[in-house]
Protein backbone atom coordinates (compact mmCIF):
# COMPACT_ATOMS: atom_id res chain seq x y z
CA UNK A 1 0.00 0.00 0.00
CA UNK A 2 1.10 3.53 -0.72
CA UNK A 3 2.39 5.10 2.51
CA UNK A 4 0.56 8.39 2.04
CA UNK A 5 1.87 11.03 4.47
CA UNK A 6 -1.71 12.15 5.16
CA UNK A 7 -2.74 8.74 6.50
CA UNK A 8 0.49 8.12 8.39
CA UNK A 9 0.18 11.47 10.16
CA UNK A 10 -3.52 10.88 10.75
CA UNK A 11 -3.15 7.46 12.41
CA UNK A 12 -0.04 8.45 14.38
CA UNK A 13 -1.18 11.83 15.70
CA UNK A 14 -4.81 10.91 16.35
CA UNK A 15 -3.65 7.67 18.02
CA UNK A 16 -1.45 9.68 20.40
CA UNK A 17 -4.17 12.28 20.96
CA UNK A 18 -6.89 9.77 21.80
CA UNK A 19 -4.40 7.73 23.85
CA UNK A 20 -3.70 10.86 25.91
CA UNK A 21 -7.44 11.56 26.26
CA UNK A 22 -7.91 8.02 27.58
CA UNK A 23 -5.41 8.54 30.39
CA UNK A 24 -6.70 12.03 31.16
CA UNK A 25 -10.23 10.64 31.27
CA UNK A 26 -9.58 7.80 33.70
CA UNK A 27 -7.29 9.84 35.98
CA UNK A 28 -8.92 9.72 39.49
CA UNK A 29 -7.15 12.95 40.45
CA UNK A 30 -7.11 14.92 37.19
CA UNK A 31 -5.12 18.13 36.81
CA UNK A 32 -7.04 21.40 36.99
CA UNK A 33 -6.53 24.96 35.79
CA UNK A 34 -3.65 25.74 33.49
CA UNK A 35 -2.11 22.26 33.80
CA UNK A 36 -5.39 20.69 32.67
CA UNK A 37 -5.59 23.28 29.89
CA UNK A 38 -2.11 22.32 28.65
CA UNK A 39 -2.82 18.59 28.69
CA UNK A 40 -6.19 18.83 27.00
CA UNK A 41 -4.91 21.37 24.47
CA UNK A 42 -2.15 18.95 23.44
CA UNK A 43 -4.64 16.07 23.22
CA UNK A 44 -7.07 18.12 21.14
CA UNK A 45 -4.32 19.46 18.88
CA UNK A 46 -3.06 15.94 18.19
CA UNK A 47 -6.44 14.29 17.61
CA UNK A 48 -7.95 17.16 15.62
CA UNK A 49 -4.70 17.69 13.71
CA UNK A 50 -4.66 13.99 12.84
CA UNK A 51 -8.25 14.11 11.64
CA UNK A 52 -7.47 17.19 9.56
CA UNK A 53 -4.60 15.34 7.90
CA UNK A 54 -6.95 12.46 7.06
CA UNK A 55 -9.03 14.89 4.99
CA UNK A 56 -5.92 15.34 2.85
CA UNK A 57 -6.44 11.83 1.54
CA UNK A 58 -9.91 12.63 0.20
CA UNK A 59 -10.61 13.38 -3.42
CA UNK A 60 -13.58 15.54 -2.37
CA UNK A 61 -12.84 16.83 1.15
CA UNK A 62 -15.69 19.34 0.96
CA UNK A 63 -18.15 16.44 1.21
CA UNK A 64 -16.42 14.90 4.27
CA UNK A 65 -19.49 15.33 6.50
CA UNK A 66 -21.35 12.74 4.41
CA UNK A 67 -19.04 10.17 6.04
CA UNK A 68 -21.24 10.32 9.16
CA UNK A 69 -24.19 8.66 7.41
CA UNK A 70 -23.23 4.96 7.12
CA UNK A 71 -22.32 4.06 10.70
CA UNK A 72 -24.41 0.89 10.48
CA UNK A 73 -22.14 -0.76 7.92
CA UNK A 74 -18.91 1.24 7.55
CA UNK A 75 -15.99 1.32 9.98
CA UNK A 76 -14.82 4.62 8.51
CA UNK A 77 -18.19 6.14 9.32
CA UNK A 78 -18.12 4.65 12.83
CA UNK A 79 -14.69 6.15 13.32
CA UNK A 80 -16.03 9.59 12.41
CA UNK A 81 -18.78 9.23 15.01
CA UNK A 82 -16.47 7.86 17.68
CA UNK A 83 -13.94 10.65 17.15
CA UNK A 84 -16.60 13.36 17.23
CA UNK A 85 -18.24 11.89 20.34
CA UNK A 86 -14.90 11.58 22.14
CA UNK A 87 -13.93 15.16 21.40
CA UNK A 88 -17.32 16.50 22.52
CA UNK A 89 -17.26 14.50 25.78
CA UNK A 90 -13.64 15.45 26.39
CA UNK A 91 -14.57 19.10 25.90
CA UNK A 92 -17.45 18.80 28.38
CA UNK A 93 -15.13 17.07 30.87
CA UNK A 94 -12.23 19.49 30.38
CA UNK A 95 -14.13 22.79 30.52
CA UNK A 96 -15.04 22.62 34.25
CA UNK A 97 -11.58 21.24 35.07
CA UNK A 98 -9.87 24.16 33.38
CA UNK A 99 -12.16 27.06 34.20
CA UNK A 100 -13.78 26.16 37.54
CA UNK A 101 -11.53 23.45 38.89
CA UNK A 102 -14.40 21.03 39.50
CA UNK A 103 -14.19 17.39 38.54
CA UNK A 104 -17.03 15.26 37.25
CA UNK A 105 -15.34 11.87 37.01
CA UNK A 106 -18.09 9.88 35.18
CA UNK A 107 -17.70 12.21 32.19
CA UNK A 108 -14.00 11.40 32.24
CA UNK A 109 -14.67 7.67 32.24
CA UNK A 110 -16.99 8.05 29.26
CA UNK A 111 -14.30 10.09 27.50
CA UNK A 112 -11.74 7.37 28.20
CA UNK A 113 -14.01 4.63 26.86
CA UNK A 114 -14.88 6.61 23.76
CA UNK A 115 -11.19 7.35 23.16
CA UNK A 116 -10.50 3.60 23.19
CA UNK A 117 -13.44 3.04 20.85
CA UNK A 118 -12.08 5.65 18.45
CA UNK A 119 -8.67 3.99 18.29
CA UNK A 120 -10.42 0.65 17.81
CA UNK A 121 -12.55 1.92 14.94
CA UNK A 122 -9.52 3.51 13.26
CA UNK A 123 -7.71 0.18 13.37
CA UNK A 124 -10.79 -1.67 12.09
CA UNK A 125 -10.71 0.40 8.89
CA UNK A 126 -7.53 -1.51 8.07
CA UNK A 127 -8.31 -4.78 9.84
CA UNK A 128 -11.54 -5.32 7.88
CA UNK A 129 -9.69 -5.44 4.53
CA UNK A 130 -9.42 -9.06 3.45
CA UNK A 131 -7.55 -7.77 0.42
CA UNK A 132 -4.55 -6.89 2.61
CA UNK A 133 -3.77 -10.13 4.48
CA UNK A 134 -1.09 -8.43 6.59
CA UNK A 135 -3.76 -6.19 8.14
CA UNK A 136 -6.65 -8.65 8.22
CA UNK A 137 -5.77 -9.95 11.67
CA UNK A 138 -6.74 -9.39 15.31
CA UNK A 139 -3.23 -8.12 16.01
CA UNK A 140 -3.92 -4.91 14.06
CA UNK A 141 -6.37 -3.41 16.59
CA UNK A 142 -4.20 -4.76 19.41
CA UNK A 143 -1.16 -2.97 18.03
CA UNK A 144 -3.01 0.30 17.37
CA UNK A 145 -4.38 0.25 20.94
CA UNK A 146 -0.97 -0.64 22.38
CA UNK A 147 0.74 2.24 20.57
CA UNK A 148 -1.97 4.70 21.58
CA UNK A 149 -2.00 3.61 25.23
CA UNK A 150 1.81 3.61 25.51
CA UNK A 151 2.08 6.97 23.77
CA UNK A 152 -0.73 8.43 25.87
CA UNK A 153 0.83 7.20 29.10
CA UNK A 154 4.17 8.64 28.05
CA UNK A 155 2.69 12.02 27.17
CA UNK A 156 0.64 12.25 30.34
CA UNK A 157 3.79 11.61 32.41
CA UNK A 158 2.78 8.20 33.80
CA UNK A 159 6.31 6.79 33.96
CA UNK A 160 5.49 3.58 35.84
CA UNK A 161 2.71 2.71 33.39
CA UNK A 162 4.49 3.89 30.28
CA UNK A 163 7.59 1.70 30.73
CA UNK A 164 5.78 -1.67 30.72
CA UNK A 165 3.37 -0.49 28.02
CA UNK A 166 6.25 0.59 25.77
CA UNK A 167 7.95 -2.78 26.31
CA UNK A 168 4.75 -4.69 25.55
CA UNK A 169 4.12 -2.57 22.44
CA UNK A 170 7.65 -3.19 21.20
CA UNK A 171 7.35 -6.94 21.76
CA UNK A 172 3.94 -7.05 20.07
CA UNK A 173 5.29 -5.06 17.13
CA UNK A 174 8.18 -7.48 16.64
CA UNK A 175 5.78 -10.43 16.62
CA UNK A 176 3.43 -8.63 14.21
CA UNK A 177 6.33 -8.03 11.81
CA UNK A 178 7.42 -11.65 12.06
CA UNK A 179 3.93 -13.06 11.63
CA UNK A 180 2.85 -10.41 9.12
CA UNK A 181 5.57 -11.49 6.70
CA UNK A 182 3.80 -14.86 6.46
CA UNK A 183 0.18 -13.73 6.18
CA UNK A 184 -0.02 -13.22 2.41
CA UNK A 185 1.20 -16.77 1.80
CA UNK A 186 -1.15 -18.05 4.51
CA UNK A 187 -4.15 -16.26 2.99
CA UNK A 188 -4.14 -18.70 0.06
CA UNK A 189 -4.49 -15.93 -2.51
CA UNK A 190 -1.91 -16.24 -5.25
CA UNK A 191 -1.65 -15.80 -9.01
CA UNK A 192 -3.51 -19.07 -9.58
CA UNK A 193 -6.58 -18.08 -7.57
CA UNK A 194 -6.37 -14.54 -9.01
CA UNK A 195 -6.53 -15.76 -12.59
CA UNK A 196 -8.31 -19.08 -12.04
CA UNK A 197 -5.62 -20.69 -14.20
CA UNK A 198 -3.82 -23.82 -13.11
CA UNK A 199 -0.16 -24.29 -13.86
CA UNK A 200 2.59 -21.75 -13.55
CA UNK A 201 1.21 -18.27 -14.22
CA UNK A 202 3.52 -15.38 -15.02
CA UNK A 203 2.46 -11.82 -15.74
CA UNK A 204 3.50 -11.40 -19.35
CA UNK A 205 2.17 -7.98 -20.28
CA UNK A 206 0.54 -5.37 -18.07
CA UNK A 207 -2.63 -3.73 -19.44
CA UNK A 208 -0.86 -0.45 -20.11
CA UNK A 209 2.72 0.65 -20.64
CA UNK A 210 2.31 3.39 -18.05
CA UNK A 211 1.36 3.31 -14.39
CA UNK A 212 -2.15 3.72 -13.03
CA UNK A 213 -4.12 4.52 -9.88
CA UNK A 214 -4.11 0.90 -8.73
CA UNK A 215 -0.35 0.56 -8.96
CA UNK A 216 0.32 3.92 -7.33
CA UNK A 217 -2.16 3.37 -4.52
CA UNK A 218 -1.90 -0.33 -3.76
CA UNK A 219 1.26 -1.81 -5.23
CA UNK A 220 4.00 0.06 -3.39
CA UNK A 221 7.16 -2.01 -3.41
CA UNK A 222 9.89 0.63 -3.28
CA UNK A 223 10.26 0.93 0.49
CA UNK A 224 10.72 -2.74 1.24
CA UNK A 225 14.39 -2.56 0.36
CA UNK A 226 15.31 -1.01 3.71
CA UNK A 227 12.54 -2.68 5.69
CA UNK A 228 14.80 -4.43 8.19
CA UNK A 229 16.80 -1.29 8.99
CA UNK A 230 13.61 0.73 9.32
CA UNK A 231 12.14 -1.88 11.65
CA UNK A 232 15.15 -1.59 13.92
CA UNK A 233 14.97 2.22 13.81
CA UNK A 234 11.24 2.10 14.64
CA UNK A 235 11.83 -0.24 17.55
CA UNK A 236 14.75 1.72 19.01
CA UNK A 237 13.09 5.13 18.67
CA UNK A 238 9.58 3.97 19.46
CA UNK A 239 10.16 1.77 22.49
CA UNK A 240 13.78 1.18 23.55
CA UNK A 241 15.07 4.76 23.75
CA UNK A 242 11.98 6.16 25.52
CA UNK A 243 12.22 3.37 28.14
CA UNK A 244 15.91 4.17 28.76
CA UNK A 245 15.12 7.89 29.04
CA UNK A 246 12.26 7.19 31.46
CA UNK A 247 14.49 5.02 33.65
CA UNK A 248 16.85 7.94 34.17
CA UNK A 249 16.10 10.45 36.95
CA UNK A 250 12.89 12.26 35.94
CA UNK A 251 13.23 15.59 34.25
CA UNK A 252 10.97 17.48 31.88
CA UNK A 253 13.62 17.65 29.18
CA UNK A 254 14.26 13.93 29.29
CA UNK A 255 10.52 13.25 29.18
CA UNK A 256 10.10 15.58 26.20
CA UNK A 257 12.97 13.79 24.48
CA UNK A 258 11.31 10.44 25.22
CA UNK A 259 8.05 11.68 23.68
CA UNK A 260 9.81 13.01 20.57
CA UNK A 261 11.72 9.76 20.14
CA UNK A 262 8.52 7.74 20.58
CA UNK A 263 6.63 9.83 18.01
CA UNK A 264 9.47 9.43 15.50
CA UNK A 265 9.45 5.68 16.14
CA UNK A 266 5.68 5.39 15.70
CA UNK A 267 5.85 7.40 12.47
CA UNK A 268 8.48 4.98 11.16
CA UNK A 269 6.46 1.96 12.25
CA UNK A 270 3.33 3.41 10.66
CA UNK A 271 5.21 4.10 7.43
CA UNK A 272 6.21 0.43 7.40
CA UNK A 273 2.63 -0.60 8.26
CA UNK A 274 1.53 0.83 4.91
CA UNK A 275 4.65 0.36 2.79
CA UNK A 276 5.01 -3.33 3.67
CA UNK A 277 1.33 -4.20 3.30
CA UNK A 278 0.72 -6.30 0.20
CA UNK A 279 -2.63 -5.78 -1.54
CA UNK A 280 -3.76 -8.84 -3.47
CA UNK A 281 -4.49 -6.73 -6.58
CA UNK A 282 -0.71 -6.62 -7.03
CA UNK A 283 -0.88 -10.28 -8.05
CA UNK A 284 -2.66 -9.30 -11.26
CA UNK A 285 0.42 -7.26 -12.09
CA UNK A 286 2.83 -10.00 -11.05
CA UNK A 287 3.89 -7.97 -8.01
CA UNK A 288 3.61 -8.50 -4.30
Amino acid at each position, binding site marked *: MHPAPSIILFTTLSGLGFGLLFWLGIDPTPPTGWVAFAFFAIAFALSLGGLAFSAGHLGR*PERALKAFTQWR*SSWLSREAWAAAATLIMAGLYAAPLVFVGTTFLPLGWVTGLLALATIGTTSMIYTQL*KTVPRWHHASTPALFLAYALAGGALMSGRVTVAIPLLLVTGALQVWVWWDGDRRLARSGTDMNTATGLSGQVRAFEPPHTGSNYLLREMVFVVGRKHALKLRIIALVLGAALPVVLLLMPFGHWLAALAVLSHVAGVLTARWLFFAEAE*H*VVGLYYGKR
Partner: protein
Amino acid sequence: MTDLPQQTQRQLGLVIDLDTCVGCHACVVSCKGWNTENYGAPLSDQQPYGADPSGTFLNRVHSYELTPETGPAQLVHFPKSCLHCADAPCVTVCPTGASYKRVEDGIVLVNESDCIGCGLCAWACPYGARELDLAEGVMKKCTLCVDRIYNENLPERDREPACVRTCPAGARHFGDLGDPDSAVSALVAERGGMDLMPEQGTRPVNKYLPPRPKDQIDEQVDILAPLLTPVAEEPKGFLGWLDRALDKL
Protein backbone atom coordinates in the same frame (compact mmCIF):
# COMPACT_ATOMS: atom_id res chain seq x y z
CA MET B 1 -27.50 2.63 2.37
CA THR B 2 -24.35 0.61 2.06
CA ASP B 3 -25.85 -2.59 3.43
CA LEU B 4 -25.89 -5.22 0.72
CA PRO B 5 -29.27 -6.54 -0.45
CA GLN B 6 -30.05 -10.05 0.81
CA GLN B 7 -30.61 -11.06 -2.77
CA THR B 8 -31.20 -9.32 -6.07
CA GLN B 9 -34.02 -9.96 -8.50
CA ARG B 10 -31.54 -10.49 -11.31
CA GLN B 11 -27.77 -10.89 -11.39
CA LEU B 12 -26.66 -9.11 -14.52
CA GLY B 13 -23.04 -9.70 -15.36
CA LEU B 14 -20.44 -10.71 -17.88
CA VAL B 15 -19.02 -14.04 -18.93
CA ILE B 16 -15.51 -13.68 -20.29
CA ASP B 17 -14.04 -16.39 -22.44
CA LEU B 18 -10.29 -16.66 -21.84
CA ASP B 19 -10.06 -19.19 -24.65
CA THR B 20 -11.43 -16.83 -27.27
CA CYS B 21 -10.01 -13.47 -26.17
CA VAL B 22 -7.30 -12.39 -28.58
CA GLY B 23 -6.08 -9.50 -26.45
CA CYS B 24 -6.92 -6.75 -28.93
CA HIS B 25 -8.02 -4.27 -26.21
CA ALA B 26 -11.04 -3.20 -28.30
CA CYS B 27 -13.23 -3.63 -25.19
CA VAL B 28 -10.90 -1.29 -23.28
CA VAL B 29 -11.21 1.38 -25.93
CA SER B 30 -14.96 1.07 -26.43
CA CYS B 31 -15.51 1.08 -22.65
CA LYS B 32 -13.52 4.26 -22.25
CA GLY B 33 -15.18 5.81 -25.27
CA TRP B 34 -18.71 5.15 -24.06
CA ASN B 35 -18.21 5.82 -20.39
CA THR B 36 -16.17 8.99 -20.71
CA GLU B 37 -19.11 10.78 -22.26
CA ASN B 38 -22.12 9.17 -20.61
CA TYR B 39 -22.89 8.07 -17.02
CA GLY B 40 -21.15 10.27 -14.45
CA ALA B 41 -17.90 12.15 -14.62
CA PRO B 42 -15.60 11.69 -17.64
CA LEU B 43 -12.74 9.20 -17.43
CA SER B 44 -9.85 11.61 -17.31
CA ASP B 45 -6.30 11.12 -18.52
CA GLN B 46 -3.24 12.68 -16.94
CA GLN B 47 -0.49 13.71 -19.36
CA PRO B 48 -1.96 11.58 -22.16
CA TYR B 49 0.72 12.76 -24.57
CA GLY B 50 3.39 13.49 -21.96
CA ALA B 51 6.28 11.54 -20.51
CA ASP B 52 4.24 9.60 -17.94
CA PRO B 53 0.75 9.05 -19.32
CA SER B 54 -1.93 7.50 -17.13
CA GLY B 55 -5.67 7.60 -16.88
CA THR B 56 -8.86 6.12 -15.52
CA PHE B 57 -10.06 2.89 -17.09
CA LEU B 58 -12.97 0.69 -16.05
CA ASN B 59 -11.70 -2.29 -17.99
CA ARG B 60 -8.13 -3.43 -18.47
CA VAL B 61 -6.70 -6.41 -20.32
CA HIS B 62 -3.78 -8.27 -18.75
CA SER B 63 -1.78 -10.97 -20.50
CA TYR B 64 -0.38 -13.99 -18.70
CA GLU B 65 2.04 -16.69 -19.69
CA LEU B 66 0.62 -20.01 -18.54
CA THR B 67 2.99 -22.95 -18.31
CA PRO B 68 1.01 -26.16 -17.72
CA GLU B 69 2.47 -29.23 -15.97
CA THR B 70 3.15 -30.73 -19.36
CA GLY B 71 3.15 -29.19 -22.80
CA PRO B 72 4.23 -25.85 -24.13
CA ALA B 73 3.50 -22.49 -22.52
CA GLN B 74 0.53 -20.53 -23.77
CA LEU B 75 -0.52 -16.90 -23.67
CA VAL B 76 -3.79 -16.05 -21.95
CA HIS B 77 -5.32 -12.61 -22.45
CA PHE B 78 -7.27 -11.59 -19.42
CA PRO B 79 -9.81 -8.74 -19.50
CA LYS B 80 -10.72 -7.51 -16.03
CA SER B 81 -13.46 -5.15 -14.92
CA CYS B 82 -15.91 -5.00 -12.00
CA LEU B 83 -17.31 -8.46 -11.22
CA HIS B 84 -20.48 -7.05 -9.57
CA CYS B 85 -19.99 -9.35 -6.56
CA ALA B 86 -22.93 -10.62 -4.55
CA ASP B 87 -20.92 -9.93 -1.37
CA ALA B 88 -19.28 -6.78 -2.65
CA PRO B 89 -16.77 -5.64 0.00
CA CYS B 90 -16.47 -2.26 -1.74
CA VAL B 91 -20.08 -1.42 -0.87
CA THR B 92 -20.07 -2.10 2.86
CA VAL B 93 -16.88 -0.12 3.56
CA CYS B 94 -18.27 3.07 1.99
CA PRO B 95 -18.74 5.71 4.70
CA THR B 96 -21.14 7.90 2.71
CA GLY B 97 -23.52 5.45 1.04
CA ALA B 98 -22.23 6.47 -2.39
CA SER B 99 -21.51 2.84 -3.27
CA TYR B 100 -24.51 0.57 -3.58
CA LYS B 101 -25.70 -2.66 -5.15
CA ARG B 102 -28.99 -2.43 -6.98
CA VAL B 103 -31.75 -4.76 -5.82
CA GLU B 104 -33.39 -4.98 -9.24
CA ASP B 105 -30.41 -6.21 -11.26
CA GLY B 106 -27.40 -6.56 -8.95
CA ILE B 107 -25.32 -3.86 -10.63
CA VAL B 108 -22.81 -2.20 -8.27
CA LEU B 109 -22.81 1.55 -8.82
CA VAL B 110 -21.31 4.72 -7.36
CA ASN B 111 -23.46 7.76 -6.73
CA GLU B 112 -20.77 10.25 -7.64
CA SER B 113 -22.38 13.24 -5.96
CA ASP B 114 -22.08 11.43 -2.59
CA CYS B 115 -18.52 10.13 -3.11
CA ILE B 116 -15.86 11.83 -0.97
CA GLY B 117 -13.02 10.07 -2.79
CA CYS B 118 -11.59 8.36 0.30
CA GLY B 119 -10.51 5.40 -1.81
CA LEU B 120 -11.45 2.79 0.80
CA CYS B 121 -13.68 0.89 -1.66
CA ALA B 122 -10.75 0.56 -4.06
CA TRP B 123 -8.70 -0.85 -1.16
CA ALA B 124 -11.49 -3.30 -0.32
CA CYS B 125 -11.75 -4.62 -3.90
CA PRO B 126 -9.42 -7.57 -4.54
CA TYR B 127 -9.73 -7.21 -8.32
CA GLY B 128 -8.62 -3.63 -8.86
CA ALA B 129 -11.99 -2.82 -10.39
CA ARG B 130 -12.28 0.67 -8.94
CA GLU B 131 -10.13 3.63 -9.85
CA LEU B 132 -10.21 7.11 -8.37
CA ASP B 133 -10.47 9.70 -11.13
CA LEU B 134 -7.72 12.21 -10.46
CA ALA B 135 -9.49 15.09 -12.22
CA GLU B 136 -12.88 14.57 -10.60
CA GLY B 137 -11.77 13.18 -7.23
CA VAL B 138 -14.49 10.53 -7.22
CA MET B 139 -14.44 6.76 -7.61
CA LYS B 140 -15.11 5.33 -11.07
CA LYS B 141 -16.10 1.77 -11.84
CA CYS B 142 -17.83 -0.39 -14.43
CA THR B 143 -21.56 0.39 -14.54
CA LEU B 144 -22.28 -2.59 -16.79
CA CYS B 145 -23.26 0.21 -19.17
CA VAL B 146 -26.42 0.80 -17.19
CA ASP B 147 -27.13 3.68 -19.57
CA ARG B 148 -27.07 1.34 -22.60
CA ILE B 149 -28.74 -1.86 -21.46
CA TYR B 150 -32.07 -0.18 -20.62
CA ASN B 151 -31.76 2.59 -23.20
CA GLU B 152 -34.75 2.53 -25.52
CA ASN B 153 -33.22 5.22 -27.71
CA LEU B 154 -30.68 2.67 -28.89
CA PRO B 155 -31.42 -0.11 -31.40
CA GLU B 156 -32.12 -3.32 -29.51
CA ARG B 157 -28.89 -5.00 -30.55
CA ASP B 158 -26.92 -2.16 -28.96
CA ARG B 159 -28.58 -2.62 -25.56
CA GLU B 160 -25.65 -4.46 -24.07
CA PRO B 161 -22.42 -3.23 -22.49
CA ALA B 162 -20.07 -1.45 -24.91
CA CYS B 163 -17.31 -4.01 -24.29
CA VAL B 164 -19.60 -6.90 -25.23
CA ARG B 165 -20.99 -5.08 -28.25
CA THR B 166 -17.54 -4.32 -29.61
CA CYS B 167 -15.66 -7.57 -28.96
CA PRO B 168 -14.63 -8.84 -32.41
CA ALA B 169 -13.85 -12.32 -31.12
CA GLY B 170 -17.11 -12.95 -29.28
CA ALA B 171 -15.18 -13.45 -26.07
CA ARG B 172 -17.57 -11.42 -23.92
CA HIS B 173 -21.14 -12.34 -23.07
CA PHE B 174 -23.75 -10.39 -21.16
CA GLY B 175 -26.82 -11.72 -19.38
CA ASP B 176 -28.59 -12.67 -16.17
CA LEU B 177 -26.38 -15.09 -14.27
CA GLY B 178 -29.03 -15.48 -11.59
CA ASP B 179 -31.34 -17.17 -14.10
CA PRO B 180 -30.24 -20.81 -14.55
CA ASP B 181 -31.97 -20.93 -17.95
CA SER B 182 -30.22 -17.92 -19.44
CA ALA B 183 -27.73 -18.31 -22.28
CA VAL B 184 -24.86 -17.09 -20.11
CA SER B 185 -25.71 -19.56 -17.33
CA ALA B 186 -25.76 -22.39 -19.89
CA LEU B 187 -22.37 -21.23 -21.16
CA VAL B 188 -20.94 -21.16 -17.65
CA ALA B 189 -22.27 -24.65 -16.93
CA GLU B 190 -20.95 -26.07 -20.20
CA ARG B 191 -17.48 -24.55 -20.05
CA GLY B 192 -16.86 -24.75 -16.32
CA GLY B 193 -17.03 -21.01 -15.67
CA MET B 194 -15.04 -19.96 -12.61
CA ASP B 195 -14.80 -17.24 -9.98
CA LEU B 196 -11.69 -15.14 -9.51
CA MET B 197 -10.18 -15.32 -6.00
CA PRO B 198 -13.04 -17.39 -4.56
CA GLU B 199 -11.22 -17.47 -1.20
CA GLN B 200 -11.86 -13.75 -0.81
CA GLY B 201 -15.53 -14.58 -0.28
CA THR B 202 -16.85 -11.91 -2.63
CA ARG B 203 -19.07 -14.28 -4.65
CA PRO B 204 -18.50 -12.51 -7.98
CA VAL B 205 -21.33 -12.53 -10.52
CA ASN B 206 -19.00 -12.30 -13.54
CA LYS B 207 -17.58 -15.64 -14.57
CA TYR B 208 -14.47 -16.55 -16.51
CA LEU B 209 -14.34 -19.47 -18.94
CA PRO B 210 -10.97 -21.24 -18.73
CA PRO B 211 -8.89 -21.82 -21.87
CA ARG B 212 -9.85 -25.10 -23.57
CA PRO B 213 -7.21 -27.84 -23.39
CA LYS B 214 -4.87 -27.64 -26.36
CA ASP B 215 -4.33 -30.53 -28.76
CA GLN B 216 -1.39 -32.68 -27.72
CA ILE B 217 1.07 -34.10 -30.25
CA ASP B 218 1.61 -37.53 -28.68
CA GLU B 219 3.58 -39.23 -31.46
CA GLN B 220 4.97 -38.51 -34.91
CA VAL B 221 2.04 -37.56 -37.09
CA ASP B 222 3.85 -36.29 -40.18
CA ILE B 223 3.64 -39.14 -42.72
CA LEU B 224 6.37 -37.55 -44.83
CA ALA B 225 8.86 -37.55 -41.98
CA PRO B 226 10.40 -40.97 -42.84
CA LEU B 227 11.15 -39.70 -46.34
CA LEU B 228 13.12 -36.80 -44.96
CA THR B 229 15.91 -38.84 -43.42
CA PRO B 230 19.30 -38.04 -45.01
CA VAL B 231 19.84 -40.15 -48.15
CA ALA B 232 23.63 -40.03 -48.35
CA GLU B 233 25.60 -40.10 -45.10
CA GLU B 234 29.02 -39.67 -46.78
CA PRO B 235 29.36 -37.41 -49.81
CA LYS B 236 30.58 -39.24 -52.90
CA GLY B 237 31.86 -38.31 -56.38
CA PHE B 238 33.03 -34.77 -57.04
CA LEU B 239 31.49 -33.36 -53.81
CA GLY B 240 33.21 -36.14 -51.88
CA TRP B 241 36.57 -35.31 -53.43
CA LEU B 242 36.01 -31.58 -52.74
CA ASP B 243 35.09 -32.33 -49.14
CA ARG B 244 38.25 -34.39 -48.60
CA ALA B 245 40.45 -31.88 -50.42
CA LEU B 246 39.17 -28.99 -48.38
CA ASP B 247 39.65 -30.98 -45.17
CA LYS B 248 43.33 -31.45 -46.02
CA LEU B 249 44.00 -27.77 -46.57
